[in-house]
């Protein structure tokens, strides 16, 4: 388990976080869960994960700020997948401009997320 690839998941919906934690841990990844952007940045700085999954709209610090922090302040090229809700198309474009690698529109299939995670961590 110590060799497991680390993934930081920033999501304010605790039920969704728990579901994704179970699903991705089943695939052999180690999940670190943050309930907001502030916690996500702390976890990223502390654990240097192999992948970041982040919602766009979160309390305190948004997903866009998390991406900007990783790319511009930490200067890391860690793959980032953003979650967006319907009507957040402009936010998704901003996320890509800031350096996000992929996005998934909510509601999404957890199985599809696993496929994308595997592709990015290959």
């Amino acid at each position: 388990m110590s060799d497991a690839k680390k993934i930081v998941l920033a999501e304010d919906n605790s039920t969704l976080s728990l579901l994704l934690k179970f699903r991705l841990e089943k695939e052999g990844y180690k999940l670190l869960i943050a309930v907001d952007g502030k916690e996500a940045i702390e976890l990223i700085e502390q654990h240097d994960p192999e992948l970041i999954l982040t919602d766009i709209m979160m309390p305190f610090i948004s997903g866009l700020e998390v991406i900007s922090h990783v790319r511009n302040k930490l200067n890391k090229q860690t793959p980032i997948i953003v979650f967006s809700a319907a009507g957040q198309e402009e936010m998704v474009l901003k996320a890509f401009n800031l350096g996000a690698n992929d996005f998934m529109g909510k509601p999404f299939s957890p199985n599809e997320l696993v496929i994308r995670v595997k592709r990015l961590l290959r």
Partner: protein
Amino acid sequence: MKSYQYLIDYFENVPTIIQVVWISICIFFVSIVILTIYLKFLRNKLRKNEKTVAEYQKEYESDLITYLYAGNEEEEISAEQQIIIDKLRSCASDEYKRRIIVSTLLRLRNEISGEMADAIQKLYFESGLISYALKRLKSRKWYVVAKGIRELTQLRVKEVHDKILMLVNHPKKEIRKEVQLYLVTLFHFDGLKFLDILQTQLSEWDQIQLLEVLQRFDEQEIPDINPWLKSTNESVVAFALKLAKIYNQFEVKDALIGLLSHHQKKIRVDTIHVLSHLQVVEAKAILKNNFDKLSQEEQIEFFKLLENLCETSDEPFLLAHTTHQNFEIKLSALKILKSLDFEKYKSLKDFSTDLDYVKIYEFLAYN
């Protein structure tokens, strides 16, 4: 005792106004103390409640996730899943717990799709939660019914279509709105069939909400809107006109032309607007021949149609209306004439001495 006596003597000897002020101060002071104690009690109660909700939510979240991952291919419902179903079924009999269970299911249902979303819906049925939502539909309180319908919409329960449809003409507009959203959210364009039996008015806000929901879907194949354009319910006609415009329903042009003689002016004006958008040339001749019989709003809308569909043969008609009493019509007529033939337009400089005409002419000539 001596000091109390001093206070009583003081109070008795001061003027009445001072006595009133002192009494008021005492009343306010006591009220503030009582309110502070009450607020503290209320805050503690709310915090305690919040804590209890969070604990239950955590428990049900865990149950839900276990349920979702406890399935296997051999059985429809595994033994582990059945334990959770039984637990939730017994908890659901308590209204307080039921609310938390449903909100937990919804929190996840709104975020995921695919097999897991279907599994959540199955759990909603198996745990008997659906029967409580159905009971709410029979409540005498309108807000209970509305909340029941909303829950069924959010959990995508298509099986209760007929029961919900029966409420489409409910006297309470909030219930009607939830019914309409249920039908359109779950059955997309097919859900619009409620328009066939709608007897009440569909408000402008209801129409906007329905259009917003419809635009979310990938499939944009709209059913035949002809019957709605001929509806006796004017709000249904107004909504059908919006559908005709948004989804470019050129095939309903005959019904649209028929609406030019509708008894309501607003419908006639909206119809001209849609005909203009769809560029129905036949409408131009009909409106031009009846121009003098049209209301001023219709005449203005007709000129907007002409801006889209004008031809050289319209020149005499346009010229005749460059001196119309209405400013918008004058402006529109001159604008169209300029777009048809600018050289000819220049020769119209001294066509009229009307002040508005001169100003519009000058403005258009240099812009």
